[in-house]
Structure formats: structure tokens, C-alpha cells
């Protein structure tokens, strides 16, 4: 297989009907749509490209990580913060409205293992949704697998998925820059302590959040020899591999020496932390 061959999962362009849409807190919303094909195939870490409205503003789709997928009801949920013109438009959708989605897109997290693992999920702000889907999926597959979630944000009201993570009966560690909820500090501090603790199983870290956070997580885990996957944040105008706008530098088997430019939408958004060349 060469690197131009498509190796992502089956994708669908679907007209999705809104089945539930609610404000979680402040400007944080959960949108649930009926999209049976996407729900059938989605795995944690994958995303949707969403288009709303019928004008040319916004012109392009926007990517949203999948928060959860329910194969039985054929529904997909996303959690978003209404803070720009696109997401404010999204916030106006009512039950029964239609929106166009393409998904599931990209490569998700790999979490299966032949040996026991201690799963550590590190979420920064609006990076939480794909990790919620991952936590939910691991729980459903094997509730006994040890797992901890570090959920951080600048301040309490920017923490995403507090209730939903706790509904999964997981160990959740909240961290805020200003100390308004949980520990005051950065998620990387919490992660460092956790890795210092002796736990029975081999740790594996999964992270999603702003690039500086991911970089810190990557540097820490790589230096400790801990397996870590990061879901990177880049602008993603098409999400399907044609606009070439979502580039990220990687060092991988295609070019270990010099690195190369990968498209986050088709080769990611989840990458091995050790493969990413972090932007300056």
C-alpha cells in the first residue's frame, strides 16, 4: 500500500435529522442527530464535517469530533461551544431540522491491546468529546479495564463533559488554570503525577486539546517511553483529503529521516505522539 491509497473506513454523506438539542451549561450544547450509517461505523477519535444553512456563508463545512455514537438508535452526538458564527448558527437548530454531514472521518484512537493497560485520557477544553466517546467505548467493551480521565480547561465553565464522564462511573480528575474547579494547574501536572504513581498495568495515554497541551503531553510521554496517541487540532476546510489545508509535520515510516507533511483529516486526526513534529 502506498500513502495515496485510501485506508480510512467507509464514509457517508448523509442528511441528518436533529433528534435532540440541548444546552448543557452556558454556551455548551449537545446536538444529537439521526445518521444511521455514520453511527454504524464511527469509532472514537473520528469526526464529522457538518454543513448548516442554505446560503454561502458559511461556505465550508466545519469538523466536529464525535462525542458518542449509538448503533441501536442510529444516532450520533456532538458537543460544541457556541462562540463563532458557525456554532451560533448550529445553536439555532431545532428538533426535526436537517443538516448535512459527512462521516465518520479520519483515523481514530487505537485502544485494543493484547496485554492489560491502564488507560489515561487527557482532555483539554473542547478536546473532551472524542475522549468521551473513547471512554464510553472502552467501558462498554470491558468495564473492568482501569481508566482515568484528566479533564482540564482554563476555567470551570470551559470544562466539557463533566456530567457525561461522571455518568460513566470513571475516575475523573478535574484541572483548571484558575482553580475554579478541581485542581488548580495544568493537565500536564496531573498527568506527570499519575505516571509517577506505580500502577499494575502499562499506561497508555490518549489526548485531545489545544496544540500546546498536546505538545507537552507528547514530550512527557515520549520521554517516559509511554505509548501515547494525540488527536491534533488543525483547520480542516474539507475533512476528506482534497483541499490539503490541514497539514501536520510527521516523522513516520514513510520518511523517518526528514519528516513529511501529512493531512490530519485522512491520516489523522489521531497520530502517535512520537510521530508528530510540533509546530513552533
Amino acid at each position, binding site marked *: 500500500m502506498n500513502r495515496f491509497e*485510501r485506508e480510512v473506513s467507509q464514509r457517508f454523506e448523509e442528511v441528518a435529522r436533529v433528534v435532540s438539542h440541548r444546552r448543557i451549561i452556558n454556551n455548551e450544547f449537545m446536538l444529537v442527530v439521526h445518521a444511521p450509517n455514520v453511527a454504524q461505523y464511527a469509532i472514537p477519535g473520528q469526526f464529522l464535517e457538518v454543513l448548516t444553512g442554505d446560503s*454561502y456563508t458559511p461556505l465550508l*463545512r466545519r469538523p466536529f469530533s464525535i462525542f458518542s455514537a449509538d448503533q441501536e438508535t442510529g444516532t450520533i452526538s456532538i458537543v460544541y461551544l457556541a462562540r463563532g458564527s458557525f456554532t451560533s448558527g448550529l445553536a439555532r437548530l431545532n428538533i426535526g431540522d436537517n443538516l448535512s454531514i459527512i462521516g465518520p472521518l479520519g483515523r481514530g484512537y487505537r485502544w485494543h491491546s493484547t496485554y492489560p493497560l491502564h488507560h489515561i485520557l487527557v482532555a483539554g477544553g473542547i478536546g473532551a468529546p472524542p475522549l468521551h466517546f473513547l471512554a464510553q467505548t472502552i467501558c462498554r467493551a470491558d468495564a473492568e479495564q482501569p481508566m482515568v480521565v484528566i479533564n482540564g480547561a482554563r476555567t470551570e465553565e470551559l470544562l466539557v463533559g463533566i456530567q457525561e464522564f461522571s455518568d460513566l462511573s470513571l475516575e475523573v480528575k478535574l484541572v483548571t488554570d484558575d482553580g475554579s474547579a478541581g485542581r488548580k494547574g495544568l493537565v500536564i501536572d496531573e498527568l506527570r503525577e499519575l505516571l509517577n504513581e506505580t500502577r499494575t498495568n502499562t499506561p497508555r495515554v490518549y489526548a485531545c486539546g489545544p496544540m500546546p497541551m498536546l505538545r507537552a503531553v507528547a514530550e512527557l510521554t515520549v520521554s517516559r517511553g509511554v505509548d501515547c496517541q494525540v488527536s491534533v487540532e488543525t*483547520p480542516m476546510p*474539507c475533512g476528506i483529503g*482534497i*483541499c490539503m489545508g490541514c*497539514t501536520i509535520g510527521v516523522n513516520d515510516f514513510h520518511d523517518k529521516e526528514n519528516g513529511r507533511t501529512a493531512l490530519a483529516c485522512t491520516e489523522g486526526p489521531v497520530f502517535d505522539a512520537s510521530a508528530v513534529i510540533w509546530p513552533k
Partner: protein
Amino acid sequence: MKFSPVTIRGGLTITRPVISAAGCVGWGDVLRDLISPTALGAIVTPTVTISERIGSTGSRTAETPAGLLYNTGLPNPGMTRFLDEVLPLLAQYGAPIIVSLAASNPQDWSALAAALEDSPDVAALEANLCGLPQANGSTDSPTLQEYLVTAVRSIRRACSKSLLVKLPPDHFNTADLCRKAELEGADAIVTGQSLRAASMRWSGDQPSLRFGEEGGRYSGPAIKPISLLQAQLAAGASTLPIIAGGGIMTPQDAIDFFAAGADVIAVGTLCLVSPNAINTLNDEVAAILQKIPGDDFRALCLTKRPRAAG
């Protein structure tokens, strides 16, 4: 009326009214699961250069109301790897393949064309005259004309397949460039190239140019009126088939371009939003044409086309 296949000298026949603009089905088979392959009129590849290019390392895209700014810097694997790794995958779509090319000197134009001459999977070549910086730097007429003449002559020397010339988006020179291209042996004209444009980024009270001094390129429905005029100018200056693009989003947009003189429609930005749009548009355009009395869609053309010599 109905669309009738457009036969272009050199071997390319386009049997459906709408094709993909350069790059809009991506490299390889990246869209295979999202488009119905049977209905593509033709595929134009992303631009290929002699050597591999990494492309721009900074910001590559920005959205405006009804428009998309981009500056990818032509990332591509170079001609050798294109032939080995990409072309076989594109061939699986079963649509005629038009390879977009860019070079900065006669030797490279010839070498690119020669590399494609014997490939049975390649139906035609498209010379992208805005691909590399030297073509962007000037709207000075002789320079642009010289660049075009060099490209067309060098390709023509090395390859007998259909040669499409994609014009720079420059209305002052469109007619002259069309005539030059035709004189030098081009087989079709492509209009609707994205426009040069800038985008400002603010960090606090500090502005910076998102795409540097060179600027980016601008496409999407915002440029449709500008592209429509270029199609009209090209149709008025050349006897060659006109493949027109630039901001086409709806079947009515496509019909507008037929009225301006286009023989074939190319869509670009729309493919980013709706990858299967080419197929949908092909059906919708056919449906609109069917409701208009007459036989051939070319009767819609309002532009007086010059008569072919001889």
C-alpha cells in the same frame, strides 16, 4: 436541448457537461467511497511538477463570506511517483484523466509532457500557468504571453495528447492569451482560475499577512461574476473548446456559463463541500437543458465565437 459530447483535438472526449477542476478529486482514490465514479465527466488532477514539493508550511486556508482563500504551494509527489503511485488509483474511477502540470522552464515543461505521452491512462494535459511564483509575479502582458508560449511550445514538442491551457485570471490579457495559445497549438482553453488575494490576520493589535507577500488564491461563489466574464472573453477570442470554471455552485450557475460560451463546466470549491456534487450537477444540468427548446446546448451561447480558420 441537450448536452452533446465535446471532442477535443488530441483524443479527449468529454461526455458529460460537468468535470472536476484541477485537484478537486484529490490524489489517488481518496474520494472513492464518496462519489459515484460512473458519472464523472473527467478528472483533472492536482498540479504535478517535475520534483516533489512539500507545499506551504504556514497557514493554508481562510474562509471569507462566499469565498475560500488558499495557498497550498502545490504540494505534490513529483512526476515519477505520480505515475507510479497516484495514476493507477485515479484510473480506477474510469473517467478520462487530465493531468495538471506546472513548470518554470522549457525543459521541465517538455519533460513533464514527455513522461505522460505514452501513458494509456492519461487522456490530456492541462498547463497551469498560475502554479509557480514566476507566473504569479506579473500581469505584464509580454511576460505572461512569453510564459504561455514557452509552456505550450515545450509541451507540444513532447506530447501529442490533448493540451488544455488554463489561463491566468486576467481579463486584460484573456483574448490575447487565448489567441496565442491557439496559435501555438493548444487544443482547449480553461478559464476560471482562482484570483490572487490577501488575507489579514490579527494578533492583538498586530496585523500580519496570512499568506505572506505573495498572497493566496481566491475561489468559491464570490468569484463567479468575474469568472463568467473571463469565459465570455475567451469564447469571443478562441475557436477552441472552452472549459469554464470559477465559483460554480448550482446548475443555474453552470447554465449561465453555457450562455457565456462555455462548452464544458468545471467545479472546484463545491467539491470540498459536497464531494459528489459533480454527479448531482450533471443530472441537474441535463434536466434544466431538457426544459429549454432546441437541440444543442451551444445555441444558448450569447458570445459571438470566431470562426475556425480553413
